[in-house]
Structures are given as structure tokens and as C-alpha cells.
């Protein structure tokens, strides 16, 4: 094999091609086939909801931290 033909040979695809082509729709479970349906819109839904869930978690956390700071300063000022 020539030196410059090495770049042409996609060894990664060769090594993993079987595993990738193994992911047929009928072999997957109900969740995966649902996600594949409707032009993959459920993937978009998933991404947005993950972002929203993380933001919500953060907001609840900061909110409760501010609440505990308020309690702390209230008790300090009362002394």
C-alpha cells in the first residue's frame, strides 16, 4: 500500500462499521423508535427540556440560598 493512500483508508469506519450498522430501528426499544419518529422533533424537545430543567434546578437553588441568607441577616440584626 502506498504511503499517501493511508489517509484515504478510513480505519475508524472499518473498525466500527458493524456496530453502527447494527443500530437498526427494529432492534431498538420503544423509546428509541419514538425518538426517531416525526423527523426527530422529540430530540429537539429533549434538548430544550434538559436545558430548562437545569436552569430550573439552578434557579430553585439560588432562590433557596438567598432565602437562607435573608434568615441569617434577620437573626444577626435582631441580636
Amino acid at each position, binding site marked *: 500500500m502506498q504511503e499517501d493512500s493511508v489517509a484515504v483508508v478510513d480505519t475508524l469506519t472499518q473498525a466500527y462499521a458493524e456496530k453502527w450498522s447494527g443500530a437498526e430501528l427494529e432492534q431498538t426499544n420503544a423509546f428509541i423508535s419514538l425518538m426517531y419518529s416525526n423527523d426527530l*422533533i422529540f430530540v429537539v*424537545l429533549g434538548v430544550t427540556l434538559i436545558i*430548562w430543567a437545569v436552569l*430550573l434546578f439552578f*434557579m*430553585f437553588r439560588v432562590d433557596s440560598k*438567598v*432565602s437562607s441568607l*435573608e434568615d441569617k*441577616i434577620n437573626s444577626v440584626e435582631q441580636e
Partner: protein
Amino acid sequence: MKAWKIVVAVWMTLVIAGGILIQIPEIPILEQTARNIFFHVPMWMAMFAMFSVSFIYSIRNLNSPDLIFDIKAESAAKVGMVFGICGLLTGSLWARFTWGTWWTFAEPKMNLAALAMMIYVAYFVLRSAFDDEEKRAKVSAVYNIFAVTTIPFLLYVVPRQLTSLHPGADGNPAFSEITAAELRFILYPAMIGFIAVAFWIYDIVHRYKTVQSRIENL
């Protein structure tokens, strides 16, 4: 934790899911980006709500000077800015794939919205120029009252008089009887939801700033 925040969390989750999942009419050029109306437009509504809160507290501060009013006015203006920046960025992305450009100086709504942001940037610059809290509160309240009066003109009155690609130009409202009715079922809840989210963030910000100033004045 107040119950309304949990309601907002659930409400917005449903709005996001609904916005992505409902069937929308097929319109050339717009295609699926018509769903952006559920997210891009409420950014501005949330901004207006926050600037209104800021305006009210600026008036109250001039009426009966109190540092807490100044803190609330500043916090609301900050949260309003954050939503305004989100509105500009989402609008720019949307414009790229429907109008074909990230930004155009031929588009009045885009540029005047950016100008409105600049006016509020000046508010924060002005605030940073004072060391004396009471002076800062008074002068920035006066400026803020000026700033908020420009908003309806920059974002509604002037753009409607000019030719523009943006909906809501040439004397027409942005959202009219030619807009598919089903979009309203998500759009209006989304507006309410995002305004509520803005209030939630504002609530966190002004409480944090209040605690901060109380610690500094101990």
C-alpha cells in the same frame, strides 16, 4: 419556596413542550421556524414587564426616597436587559435563516431594539458613576423614567411607520387575523410564562441585592 414558582416551573415546561410539539401550518421560508414566535416574542414581553416594574419603582423612589425602591428598580432593569439581549440574539439567528442575514441596518425594528438596549446600558453606566447611594438613587430614577418612555416609540410606534421585513411594519400589527389561530394557544401562555420567569429572576436578584446592602450597612 413559594408555591407560585412551582406553578411557573410546570407551566413553562408545558409551554416549551407544546411549542415544539403542536402542529403548525406550513409556510414557505418560515417552515418550522414559525415556532420561534413562542420563544422570541415573549422575550420582549418579559422585557417590557421588567422595565415597567423598574419604572414604577423609580417613580416611587422619587416620591418617597427609599434605598429599597432603588434596589428594586435596578434589579428589574437588569433582568429586563437580560431578556432584551435574549430577544436580540434569537431575532438575529431567526433573521439569518429567514431573511438571509444576521443583521441588517435596513431593518428598523432590529436597530431600534438595539438602540433601546443601549439606552439601558447608559442607565447602568450612569449608576456606576456615583459613590453616594442617595444621589445615585435619585439621578438614576430620573434617567430611568426617561429611558422607559423611549421603549414604546422605539419598538412599536416608529417601526410601524417604516418599511420592514419584521412583522408589525407598514402600519400593520405583528399578530393579526392572517396569523394562524392555533399559534395563540401557545403564544399567550408563553408570554405569561416568560413574564412570570422574569419576575422570578427579578425576585431572586432584588432579594440578593437587598441582603448585600444590609450586610454592607451593618
